[in-house]
């Protein structure tokens, strides 16, 4: 399966682009960890370090009009879907300049302009949404594709099975991308599933499904390209099981008691960034100065983004109850807290009568 080893890197420019994309995610998240430790970012923070080839490869296959649904481990997906690093970081700062004006945070990044539908912190909760987005496209006769990312832990949830069945039953234009990093928090796949071949589960719903080396960005890109083309041309739902590994803890609160350091070290030898970088260097496609320039570029992007987030403004508390319901002229800004305004008018009247 290893495209990197077997085929070498054919298009140096494109490989360089993929390398950059993965590095952007890596550096963004390394910065997130730093900012978390400095208490600039709070809440839960789940990083994607080690899994970057998955988002980088799949996003290449998408068109701007396609839709993406992801999980709480979605900083990379958002960034590679073209949500700016600044808007992502500002969101984690709780600033008005954040992509959700400080209401979402790390686990709930959304962006209408790029059709990025989250950022869903309920395991498997995004799958039915993806099915519905695809249903809308199908009913409206549009040739768009919805891609749904989720972890292998989601496979045990009912919403996974309901969504597989609906997508297949209605032949909807959706690509399911299962990021199999072998663990759901501390639960290894073999300890939670009676059948650990995930692609096989999807195949049981009559969905075309196959497993891909998720550390090999070219293999991911190739598989995603094939799958997206098939989905777009009316081939019904497709499913990729992307075999990958998370190098870091589940979140910032995980002492990693459930796996051996040696296992992590072994997987880190297949770091998707080093793999591509190495293959390119071997093929003479990545001169030292280019690699240095690429890193400098990415570092500059991230530090600009940090500056943007740092200089942002906290979303005003006066805006707190906005967006519970859509702004409506006739609605009088009802927030569900029916008390305050009414108490003012009524207590005057009641007081006079009493």
């Amino acid at each position, binding site marked *: 399966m290893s495209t990197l080893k077997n085929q070498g890197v054919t298009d140096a420019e494109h490989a360089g682009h993929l390398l950059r994309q993965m590095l952007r995610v890596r550096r963004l998240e390394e910065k997130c960890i730093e900012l978390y430790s400095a208490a600039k970012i709070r809440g839960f923070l789940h990083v994607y370090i080690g899994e970057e080839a998955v988002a980088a490869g799949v996003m290449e296959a998408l068109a701007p009009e396609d*839709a993406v649904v992801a999980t709480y481990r979605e900083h990379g997906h958002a960034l590679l879907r073209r949500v700016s690093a600044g808007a992502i970081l500002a969101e984690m700062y709780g600033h008005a300049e*954040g*992509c*959700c*004006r*400080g*209401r*979402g945070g790390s686990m*709930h990044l*959304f*962006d*209408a302009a790029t059709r990025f*539908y*989250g*950022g*869903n912190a*309920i395991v498997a*909760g995004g*799958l*039915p*949404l*993806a*099915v*519905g*987005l*695809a*249903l*809308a*496209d199908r*009913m*409206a006769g549009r040739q768009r594709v*919805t891609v749904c990312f989720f972890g292998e832990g989601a496979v045990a949830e*009912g*919403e996974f099975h*309901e*969504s597989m*069945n*609906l997508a297949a*039953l209605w032949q909807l234009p959706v690509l399911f991308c299962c990021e199999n990093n072998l663990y759901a928090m501390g639960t290894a796949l073999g300890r939670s599933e009676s059948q650990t071949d995930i692609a096989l589960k999807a195949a049981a719903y009559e969905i075309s499904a196959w497993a891909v080396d998720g550390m090999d960005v070219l293999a991911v890109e190739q598989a995603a390209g094939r799958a997206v083309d098939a989905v777009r041309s009316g081939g019904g739902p497709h499913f990729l099981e992307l075999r990958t590994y998370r190098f870091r803890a589940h979140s910032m609160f995980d002492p990693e008691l459930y796996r051996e350091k040696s296992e992590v070290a072994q997987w880190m030898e297949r770091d998707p960034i080093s793999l591509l970088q190495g293959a390119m260097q071997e093929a003479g496609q990545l001169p030292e100065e280019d690699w240095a320039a690429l890193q400098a570029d990415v570092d500059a992007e991230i530090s600009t983004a940090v500056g943007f987030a740092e200089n942002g403004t906290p979303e005003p508390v006066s805006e707190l109850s*906005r*967006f*519970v*319901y*859509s*702004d*409506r002229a*006739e609605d009088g800004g*009802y*927030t*569900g807290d*029916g*008390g305050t305004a*009414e*108490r003012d008018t*009524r207590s005057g*009247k*009641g*007081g006079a*009568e*009493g």
Partner: protein
Amino acid sequence: MKTTYREAMRAALRDAMQRDERVFLMGEDVGRYGGSFAVSLGLLEEFGPDRIRDTPLSESGFVGAGIGAALGGMRPVVEIMTVNFSLLALDQIINNAATLLHMSGGQFNVPIVIRMTTGAGRQLGAQHSHSLEGWYAHIPGLRILTPATLADARGMLWTALQDPDPVLIFEHGSLYNMAGDLDDDAGPVDVDKAALLRHADGTGESLTLITYGGTLPLVLAAADQLAEEGIDTDVIDLRTLRPLDTHTILDSVAGTHRAVVVDEGWRSGSISAEIAARICELAFFDLDAPVERVCSLEVPVPYAKHLEEAALPSVGRVMAAARRAVGANG
């Protein structure tokens, strides 16, 4: 025009499907079976299987798909057979439909309508007799409608479909066969205000009866009997449980000085508790008597007819509460 609540609902669905091609109905047995309460009977033949879409038994899956379709520009009407089964879709309703607009900083509104039957009274036992609409009314981001009249059965759906945000419509199972006259040109209704269906004329002792949904008919019957006893009532049909039209309640209580809230939900932590609290917060000095509540007894709804009847609000219990409220002043 003579019609029933069921037919009025169906007319509303047909009208919505004709008016807006983005509207479609999806749910278990809405098509070939004709709807488990026969609301959508005949619509499959009229609109075809794409728009009258039968789903598998996957409440979370198809409610979530409805939310996704709403995000994708459609105007789905999702039918959940009964509120009891909506518990399997709570994740989608509460974690997604109700939150997406806010979590996304105003970027993604969810124009979905979710209809479901609610309520007890047909000897179906605990798992088929829940009244959880007040519980849903706890959730910011949702709008909760409880049509209890033919006009509202006919008119609320289109209004709900115009709402940019999620709307849940609760249809009490005992209302479907309710028959009566409806204007030939009946159409969309506003859902922002509660309705004052009966107005105390100021003679005798007065009080406000506040209810919604399935208990409206028994409250109206109680009001008739109370009138014979010289107790004069305002009857408020809340129509919408969230947002609550507090003003209509307060205006009435300002005139009657007493209130009885009738709610098929359980008393603890209920919509009746919310209403009583608002009256106490905002109209305390208007009151001549403590607010009374008539709710379901706090037991899983039992099967046996006499037990079920004893557990649910009844005309007798409403009258007793009304007499207590009036007596408390005397």
